[in-house]
C-alpha cells in the first residue's frame, strides 16, 4: 500500500448479504473466500437466487468451494475479458432488486464496477471486498494505454515506455490509477524501482 492516500483512492468493505431478489457475484482468486465468509452469515436459501461469475487465480483454487454453495448459476471464466460478454448480458437483462457483490483483486473489482456503472448501477450500491494481490491497473496519462498488474513504483508504461509514477488518484470510469511520467523534467533522473503493490 502507498503510505499516504487520497480521497479518490477506492476504499473497500466487507461483503454482507443484502436484501434483494437476485444476487450477482463477480470474484477472482482469493475473492472466493469473501463469498464463503458472506455465505456463513447468509440466510438459508440465499444462493438459490445467486449467480456467481468466478475467475480463478493461476492456482485454480476455490472452484469446488463456490460450487458447493449451490448458486442458481455458476460460471468459471478464464479471464475478466472472457467473462465480460456474459456479465454485460446479465446486467442488461437485470431487473430492480439485483444486488451486486465484487470481491478479489483491485483490477477485478474496478473492471466489474466499470461495467456495472455503464449499465447504470450506482457505485455506492455495490458491495466490494478486496482480497489478494495489491497489483494495480494503471492508465498512462500521456499515451492513454492501460497497463495491467502493475506491482512496482515507478512502473514502465507497457505501451509508450515512459517511466511512470503510479499515483493514488483513481478513476472509476477508466477502472485505473493514474500514471504520470516520474522524470519528465529531467529524463536522466532514474529513481529506483521498488516492488510495492504485491
Amino acid at each position, binding site marked *: 500500500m502507498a503510505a499516504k492516500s487520497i*480521497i*479518490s*483512492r477506492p476504499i473497500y468493505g466487507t461483503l454482507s448479504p443484502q436484501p434483494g431478489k437476485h444476487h450477482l457475484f463477480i470474484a477472482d482468486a482469493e475473492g472466493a473466500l469473501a463469498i464463503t465468509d458472506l455465505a456463513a452469515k447468509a440466510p438459508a436459501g440465499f444462493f438459490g437466487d445467486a449467480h456467481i461469475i468466478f475467475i480463478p487465480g493461476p492456482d485454480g483454487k476455490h472452484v469446488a468451494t463456490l460450487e458447493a454453495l449451490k448458486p442458481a448459476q455458476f460460471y468459471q471464466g478464464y479471464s475478466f475479458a472472457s467473462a465480460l460478454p456474459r456479465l454485460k448480458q446479465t446486467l442488461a437483462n437485470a431487473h430492480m432488486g439485483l444486488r451486486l457483490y465484487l470481491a478479489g483483486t483491485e483490477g477485478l473489482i474496478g473492471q466489474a464496477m466499470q461495467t456495472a456503472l455503464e449499465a447504470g448501477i450506482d457505485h455506492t450500491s455495490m458491495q466490494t471486498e478486496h482480497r489478494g494481490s495489491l497489483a494495480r491497473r494503471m492508465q498512462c496519462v500521456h499515451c492513454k494505454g492501460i497497463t495491467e498488474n502493475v506491482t512496482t513504483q515507478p512502473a514502465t508504461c507497457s505501451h509508450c515506455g515512459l517511466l511512470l509514477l503510479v499515483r*493514488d*488518484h483513481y*478513476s*472509476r470510469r477508466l477502472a485505473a490509477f493514474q500514471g504520470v511520467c516520474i522524470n519528465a523534467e529531467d529524463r536522466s533522473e532514474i529513481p529506483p524501482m521498488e516492488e510495492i503493490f504485491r
Partner: protein
Amino acid sequence: MGITFRKETFRDDFSFKNSPEHIRRFPFPFHEDSYMYAVNIEPHVVGPKGSVLENLIDVDEHYVAEMQDRALVLAEDPLRCQSLPHMTLAGWDLLELLMEQQALGYPEHFTLTREGDHWRWINRPLGIDDTFTFGDVSTLPYGPMEYITRQSQGDFCILDQRDGNLWMDAGMVTTQADWSLDFDIGMNFFEWHAPVPLAHEKGIFIRALKFLTNIQQGKPARRLNWTMTINPRLDTSPENYHKWGPDRTTVTPENVGDKVHLRVELQSFWRLPRSNGIVFPIRCYLIKMDELVTQPKWARRLHRVIRDLPEELATYKGLTRYRPTLVEWLSKLDDGSATSPGFGPD
C-alpha cells in the same frame, strides 16, 4: 473602439506578450504579502472599467491567438473535449450564456440574433457567421459545448448537480494547470480535487461544495487561483508533461524575467437554467516576470509570497527546481518597504 488582437504564439517561439494596458489590468492574485488556501469566493459582479472584470466574460487582446492554440491542441488530442451523454442540454445552456455575454460586452466583435429557436451568431474576429436551430445538434458543426468553447477564452467544466454533490461530466480543457479532464471526467467534487494537498484537512472543499451547490441563476460567483509556468505555454496538461516538464530546468538568473510567468486563473461559477448544472469557466492569464515587475508593488509582494510559500504548496505547484533562482531575482526588487492593501498596482 474594438480590441486589437495580437498575433502571437503560446508554443515553439513563444511570442506571447501583454501590452502595457494589459499589464495594468492583470488580475494579480495576492491581496497581502503571503498566501494560503482559503475559500476565497465572492459574487461575480462587474468591476471597474479597464479591469478584467469590466465584463463577466472577458475577451482580451489574446483572444484570436488563444483560439488558434486551442484548435491545435484539439487536433492533436480530441480527448481534451468530452461530454458525457446526459450533458448535451447543459452544453446548450453554456452556448447561450457565452453568446449572450460576449455579444453584450463586445458588440463590435460579436452579434447574436434570435427569432424563436432560429439563432444567428456572428463572430467577427474568427470570421464566423452561422445560423442554427437552438436545441438541434445537427445544425451545428460540433456539439454545442465544443462549438462555443472553440470561440471562448478559458477552459470550461460543466458540473452536473445530483446527490448533493457536483460531478465533472463535461468539459473543454486545453489550457490547464496540470490536470486531466480525460482522467477526471465523471468524478465528484471531492474526487477530482483529491490530489490537492492541505486543503482537504482545512475543510476547504466541504465549504466550497456547500457554497457552489447553492449558487442561484443570475448570481454567479468567482475566485482566483494561481501557479507559475515556464514560457507562456497555455497547454500545460499532464498529457504533455513529458514535453513541457523539461522547461523547468532551463531557468537561469539571466532569463528569469522572460521565462518565468505568473499564471492566474479567474474561476467563475454559474448556474445553468435548463439543466440545473453549474458551469465553471477557468480563464487563464499569463504574465512574464519582466512585465509584472513594471509594477513595483507587485514585485515586492510576489517576492515575499514565493519566498515564504509552504513547501507542500511549492511542490504541488511545481516550483521546486527554480524557486531559489526566482526568489533571488525578485529579492533585488524588494527594498523591504510596505505594500499597500488590495490587489491592484499602486
